[in-house]
């Protein structure tokens, strides 16, 4: 077995500046408050919260790497494994299901040929099941990064997949 040098990850200069601004928002000694925002920043850059990225966040905040991991693993938004280019997070909670969510999500997974939690072979799509996205009056709903897609139907899903595959 060969020992490989551990890959290191750094924020881009713009993100590093932003990270420092975020850290400065909190009282002295309370920089750990910046952990959730910084994990979002890491995921925005890397697509997921990789172990190397979390180590980098730990050193920026002067906390132990395990403190980062225990937080990242508590919250559902952080991807602890690599994901596809587009992560489709669909709401599986009651009100969306009342509006036909189950059928639409089945269609979505069938179209992509994957189950929730999986990524397509071409690395383009990951599908995740999430709980209520606070858009119940517009269900069924899914989210891709910051964008909400509402009033979903099978046709609308086909259209979105087509657009994102182009």
């Amino acid at each position, binding site marked *: 077995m060969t020992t490989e040098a551990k890959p290191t990850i750094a924020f881009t200069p713009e993100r590093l500046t932003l990270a420092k601004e975020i850290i400065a928002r909190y009282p002295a000694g309370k920089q750990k408050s910046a952990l959730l925002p910084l994990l979002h920043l890491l995921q925005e850059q890397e697509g997921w919260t990789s172990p190397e990225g979390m180590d980098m966040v730990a050193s920026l905040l002067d906390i132990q790497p395990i403190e980062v991991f225990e*937080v990242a693993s508590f919250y559902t938004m952080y991807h602890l494994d690599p994901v596809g280019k587009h992560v489709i997070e669909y709401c599986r909670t009651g*009100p969306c299901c*009342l509006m036909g969510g189950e059928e639409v999500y089945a269609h979505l997974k069938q179209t992509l040929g994957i189950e929730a939690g999986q990524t397509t072979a071409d690395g383009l799509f990951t599908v995740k099941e999430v*709980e*209520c996205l606070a*858009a119940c009056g517009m*269900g069924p709903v899914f989210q891709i990064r910051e964008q909400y897609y509402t009033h979903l139907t099978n046709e609308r899903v086909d259209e979105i997949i087509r657009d994102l595959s182009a």
Partner: protein
Amino acid sequence: MGKKILTEHINVAGIETFDVYRKQGGYTAVEKALKTMTPEGVVEEVKKAGVRGRGGAGFPMGMKWSFLAKPEGVPRYLVCNADESEPGTFKDHYLMKNIPHLLIEGMIISSFALGANTSFIYVRGELMYVIRILEKAIAEAKAAGFLGKNILGSGYDLELVVQPGGGAYICGEETALLESLEGKRGNPRNKPPFPAVKGLYQCPTVVNNVESIATTSWIVNNGGDAYAGIGIGRSTGTKLISASGHIKKPGVYEIELGVPVEEFIYSDEWCGGIRDGHHLKALVAGGSSVPILPAELSLKLANGDPRLMSYESLSEGGFQTGTMLGSGGFIVFDETACIVRNTWNFSRFYHHESCGQCSPCREGTGWMEKVLHRIEHGHGSMHDIDLLVDVAKKIEGNTICPLGDAAAWPVASAIRHFRDEFEWHITNPFEATQPGAVYQGHMALV
């Protein structure tokens, strides 16, 4: 048309910008409070208004404010709970996205009243696009001199920080939210000490919901008595209701508290009635946590009087025949909805969202989901129904935070009012597991 306090200007083009909001009379309440009132005076008006916590608990906001400890030389914090995650609830999302300055203005007034110089708005991370809207609004307000040092020459300083969550329903519980804001896992804290004494960074802290804070501009401008004159009895003011499910017009509606439930569902001003050709079967009036009611008890009290959209009327009859206003997450079910499937769905939610700290909740929510799953999928036994009631009872009241109760109530109430539907699933497993099959038995539709 009912009184509009929060949404009067929400459809004005450009209302998300400082200039348009200002032209509609925005930030006059900040001027009035900072130039002509004392912090105590603002607290007094909010107390007089009788506004109750709009996040779901319904605790009087002014009273919560008056509990805030004020030790010398220790910072105090205001934290806005914008972690809206209760299934069926999307009003804060709507308000922040469309009229962000209403929340910013309320934050300035409330922070001034409480003597906080740094305040936080904790927004669920999924709403990152709303966080960007709020940050833009804060920058505009700051550029106009309504935030920062020496606001309007009053000597009062305030910085506002928008904090994203990471995806966890439990962080809507105020002590879990504070843990999360400190960069930790969202495990609720034991109380006491209450946040009013030891909150964020162990300093005195008030946590209020978005909608509650947003009322303060109107209260400062018009007075607490005027606010208390709206609504009915101790349910003062207006409430945002997030209406979803099988209605013609889902959406967020601002109602004066006291509107009859029947009118709210069937009037064209609000939900517009049940979708064509269908009938009301059940109602969850205040978010997934509150007891579900069958059609007849949704519209009328046990004595036959109309049920009203108010804290008191919705809880009339206790859990035997009543429910709660909660967060105003109003989910309407018609006869195509399967109560067992929906109850299983909600149980899965609470199991997923339990933080795992207290065994009754961690284990109990898992058991309820499992048992409901097997009933829904045709493998239940009659004993399972009583088992569910038993598990729900053992969770309720035995946990650090109210998530346990919130998980127990939907299950207990579904069995209380729709027991025959559960029994039908058990005695007719083949029929009940056909796609789209719904019990057509003794339910009374309206």
